[in-house]
């Protein structure tokens, strides 16, 4: 192994892991406030398709990014309205959002799939993803607003009694999560594999969701976890190309397996506190209760 090869491998790991970090950190903040959004895959697809289509139509990366973010705001806003105001079941609504995103993105992108574009360099968003982890970590642990988010996620009734606006906080965190997911989608269709094809997110939304649990709701651990998952995937490709025999299916399953193991640990109540799972996660908030 020479140095160029190692740098090359690290470069590929950086490029392929960034969407997981972006979407994962967004979901982490959403879940910290007590809302589980299973719609990541749909949000990412919508971000990807709007970014791509805008780029084809305008040829401008800024507009492309802008509309991609708008799509995230609109879709996650709808999700927030449904689960916060109408108090629909979060799991069912999130799944519906995913299915909706898959269908709508396919419809929007139908006439654009197979249009060649010039991709944007991935390094802007790679750098951004590291800054993002730093700021989110700082925000959640060191700022007053961050503490409010966590209070709302831990016990919304107490937070309400203290005078914090639970609904508003959750709106903001859901929309933040939506914007990060759409950024991840934008990254995939404009920077990572510059193209639009139906369903091109290929399950990365679910891996990002799994990562949040794997990281036990800690931003830095999420970053590390994402790079473990991404690194393992790229390493196994490298080993394969070197002719080492590996059970590839096993590595594809790894992220989910690791998450399952963490979930088993969390389900025993004592360590749950240590692992910092928000106790109001997935519990609807009624103002008068």
């Amino acid at each position, binding site marked *: 192994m020479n140095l160029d090869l190692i740098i090359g491998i690290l470069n590929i790991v950086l490029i392929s892991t960034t969407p997981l970090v972006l979407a994962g950190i967004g979901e982490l903040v959403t879940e910290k406030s007590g809302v589980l959004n299973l719609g990541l895959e749909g949000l990412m697809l919508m971000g990807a398709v709007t970014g791509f289509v805008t780029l084809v139509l305008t040829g401008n990366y800024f507009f492309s990014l802008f509309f991609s973010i708008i799509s995230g705001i609109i879709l996650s806003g709808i999700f927030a309205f449904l689960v916060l105001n109408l108090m629909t079941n979060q799991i069912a609504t999130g799944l519906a959002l995913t299915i909706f995103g898959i269908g709508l993105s396919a419809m929007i992108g*139908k006439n654009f799939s197979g249009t060649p574009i010039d991709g944007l360099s991935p390094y802007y968003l790679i750098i951004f993803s590291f800054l993002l982890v730093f700021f989110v970590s700082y925000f959640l642990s060191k700022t007053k607003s961050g503490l409010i988010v966590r209070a709302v996620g831990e016990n919304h009734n107490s937070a309400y009694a203290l005078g914090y606006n639970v609904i508003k906080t959750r709106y903001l965190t859901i929309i933040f999560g939506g914007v990060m997911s759409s950024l991840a989608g934008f990254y995939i269709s404009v920077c990572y*594999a510059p193209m639009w*094809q*139906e369903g091109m997110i290929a399950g990365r939304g679910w891996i990002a969701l799994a990562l949040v649990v794997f990281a036990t709701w800690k931003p830095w651990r999420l970053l590390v976890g994402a790079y473990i998952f991404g690194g393992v995937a790229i390493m196994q*490709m490298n080993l394969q190309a070197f002719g080492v025999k590996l059970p*590839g299916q096993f590595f594809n399953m790894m992220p989910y397996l690791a998450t399952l193991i963490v979930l088993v640990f969390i389900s025993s109540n004592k360590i749950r506190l240590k692992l910092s799972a928000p106790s109001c996660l997935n519990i609807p908030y009624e103002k008068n209760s």
Partner: protein
Amino acid sequence: MKKQSLVLVVIAAIVVIAGIFYVTNQNIQKDVIDDQKKVGFIYIGPPGDHGWTYMHDVGRQYLEKELGDAVSTTYIENVPENADAVRSIRKLAESGHDLIFTTSFNYMDQTLEVAEEFPDVKFEHATGFKRTDNVSTYSARFYEGRSVIGHIAGKMTETNTIGYIVSFPIPEVIRGINAFYLAASKVNPDVKIKIIWVYSWYDPGKEADAANTLINQGADIIVQHTDSYAPCQAAEKAGVLAFGQASNQEAFCPNAHMTAIEDIWGPYYAAKAKELVDGTWKSEDTWHGFKEGMVEMSPYNEKLLSADLISEAKAIEEGIENGTFHSFEGPIYNQAGELVVKEGEVADDGMLAGMMFYVQGIDGEVPQ
């Protein structure tokens, strides 16, 4: 008392709903007999993949054009290769389709399962090898195209390292690797191929990762047996060469794309639908290649390939068409050094259909 009446109401509702379904289903089937024949397709990916599924959809449109009002076609896209496929195939069979094409290898057992339930419906399973009275199989001899691109790659590589991205370890894919390697090593004995299994037919991100990994390890030509054009695009970006897959992908990577193996399904689909309409459809196995026009090479990229090399490639195409060249001509050894095809002989279709071993010279093992 209240509970009992509720149960009665529920039962009554179920009976009524079932009755409505029964009657409407009857109607659908009757309409079909009176009217036109219905042909259904099961796709593994979206028709917009510009690869495998795209070409099947081109074939479907060709069928519609050829037969006009005699048939109507339907397709279900993104059908996973698991128990879900049974549901999708059954859905087509139940809704009065007379002929159903299932267009991926791992729909094999699912197709047979549904075919047993619907003996009057005809099924056509792509790239498989299990047939019954109402299940035909069909495939294209893609490996003939692999011989052509193998020859080109053997001549074009400077690092003597070729990256090969593959989906699943099934005979069709392994046959392609072997045909490619045999042709490449014939013109360039030093050539090495590096193989990455991505365990997906269609994941642009992963395919791009695999291409970048191979390029990083020194490959200067990227070959793929997956369905998106991401590997070709990655090659373009890195300044190395590549071959398109299933359809002409030159538009996406004009400076990397040397040629592509194209799958031409239209004439076959039209012929089978015609047989259905005429009532002459029967279960059979079809395996066509260059000769019958089911496999074609995309226009050779004259910017990248010399005129000599292009004429060599065309000579191989012609040789395969008129039978003077075969992709698997003996002597061929397996990795253990055993002679599998004797000198002067060619591999028979039975061996090709079940090929699950690498030929001598390829590093690594076939994943189990």
